[in-house]
């Protein structure tokens, strides 16, 4: 068919627009029984922090209609152990690894970015800003443009690798947050992280997960994610990486058409670890059928008239 699936995110070229989402594919190697990592656009690794974290006590996950809630608590081995024990195994794989990282203060973010900056196997760093800022009363970094700007700027000067900022959907005006990240030097935006959510076991009158609140992911979240991708990609010039509920080629195409230059697959991997192949085949088939030579021609290609948002309902 000769469809060209490769995409560029700024200076970073990917074989195709599909990446595995952070937290849904471990440190990459756990996927190898199921996927040839070199056939993927890239792999976003489980969120890392300077000191690592043992994560939240169980239960950590609960299923909801069309989705799931998780509060893993960002369990991770810590940057140092990652660099020592995991990264060396990744270096031989010819694919783009993206290190997802977080902190509870600007300093922790900066230190993680600085430590990861030297690792040759990493093609980019992805900042998870949906974390409570412990120095500022536990409000999430990602919910306020000023603090997004501050933490992004700080990390920007700590690394020369492409820096992606992963946005939370839990904001009133995602365009403002997107612009703040762009102005602070982000190379790309990942949209979206999970949505804060809760479930209660009515028989036991207890929270379904130990942390009470967790993050909603999966197909239930998709329409919110497509909307955020559309709004964010129209607010900035840097590329947007779409994510949220993608399970099929049609889902992925929705994100590309809405404005995503690439996309990530998370929860769908739990249901079928081989779904990236099906998605990529479906995209190639769609392009061939529609006479599209370069998948990049689809980016933001939804027929869009004048922006005229009226009331919902």
């Amino acid at each position, binding site marked *: 068919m000769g469809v060209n699936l490769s995409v560029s995110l700024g200076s970073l070229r990917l074989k195709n627009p599909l990446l595995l989402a952070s*937290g*849904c*594919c*471990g440190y990459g190697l*756990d*996927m190898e*029984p*199921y996927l040839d990592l070199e056939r993927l656009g890239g792999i976003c690794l*489980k969120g890392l922090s300077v000191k690592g974290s*043992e*994560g939240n*006590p*169980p*239960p*950590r*996950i*609960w*299923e909801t*209609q*069309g*989705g*799931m809630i*998780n509060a*893993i608590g960002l*369990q991770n081995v810590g940057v140092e152990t990652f660099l020592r024990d995991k990264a060396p195994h990744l270096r031989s794989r010819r694919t783009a690894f993206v290190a997802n990282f977080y902190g509870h203060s600007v300093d922790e973010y900066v230190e993680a970015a600085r430590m990861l900056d030297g690792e040759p196997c990493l093609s980019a760093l992805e900042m998870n800003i949906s974390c409570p800022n412990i120095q500022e009363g536990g409000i999430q970094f990602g919910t306020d443009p000023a603090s997004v700007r501050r933490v992004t700027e700080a990390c920007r000067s700590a690394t020369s690798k492409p820096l992606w900022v992963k946005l939370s959907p839990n904001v009133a005006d995602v365009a403002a947050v997107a612009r703040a990240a762009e102005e602070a030097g982000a190379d790309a935006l990942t949209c979206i992280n999970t949505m804060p959510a809760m479930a209660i076991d009515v028989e036991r009158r207890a929270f379904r997960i130990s942390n009470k609140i967790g993050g909603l992911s*999966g*197909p*239930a979240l998709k329409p919110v994610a497509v909307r955020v991708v559309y709004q964010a990609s129209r607010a900035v010039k840097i590329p947007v990486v779409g994510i949220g509920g993608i*399970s099929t080629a049609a889902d992925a195409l929705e994100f590309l058409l809405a404005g995503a230059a690439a996309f990530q697959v998370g*929860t769908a*991997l*739990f*249901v*079928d*670890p*081989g779904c990236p192949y099906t998605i990529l085949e479906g995209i190639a088939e769609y392009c061939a059928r529609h006479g599209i030579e370069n998948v990049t021609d689809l980016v933001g290609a939804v027929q869009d008239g004048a922006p005229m948002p009226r009331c919902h309902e």
Partner: protein
Amino acid sequence: MALRTYRVVDNDRTGPYSTLTLQGEVAASEPGQFYMLRGDWGADPLLGRPISILGEDVEDGTVRFLVKEVGEGTRRLCALEPGAAVFGLGPLGRPFPLPPPGAAPVALAGGGVGVPPMIYLAGRLSAKGLPFRFFQGARTAADLLCLEELAGAGTEPVLATEDGSLGLRGLVTEPLAGRLGEFSAVYACGPEGMLKAVQALCAGRVPSYLSLEARMGCGYGVCLGCVVPVERNGRRTYERVCAEGPVFEGEAVRWA
């Protein structure tokens, strides 16, 4: 490994239980391993359900499961008609470690949906000529499972029911306690209460292997959703039921 499509060739329903026989590409497994199973429905429910292997015939391409209806996912699995498609990922998880040849007999303790993997284990031990005794506990006679399979397994099972309607009256750990000295190891799968009792009983006396349950996201180690606290060499950590388990040494398990 990949998610495969299986066909239901038989669904034998009794009360809330279904014994499902699936046909398709079946990779050789070990007792204690499980599959993530899901029918051809939409995104609700979304995730597969972990179900232990009851038995398999790799050459025929069939694998069997015993599913108890407890919620929406198992309700749908139990309702599958012959011919229906089932998506399965497996075998997954670490199996029960088999006793070394020549070891003293081992005890197998099963309760509820913990019985199926023990049946599979009993069959494997029989085939290898390794001696064992099977203990099964349940609330009433009607809740005892797989009695025919057990009858065919060579050794007389020890049955206990809480209401005394079949076998001994009381918990299955009582007869096990009385005979613990006969065994070189105890293998158990069942409700948490039973596993805790087995753990306590065996502590410092005989190795125990407990097969744990947890709510699972992926079933193959990437989501970190299924962890349980364990303690090894004095260090407490979380381990994944789907990857380091579902079978854990009783000495290590700390419960959530």
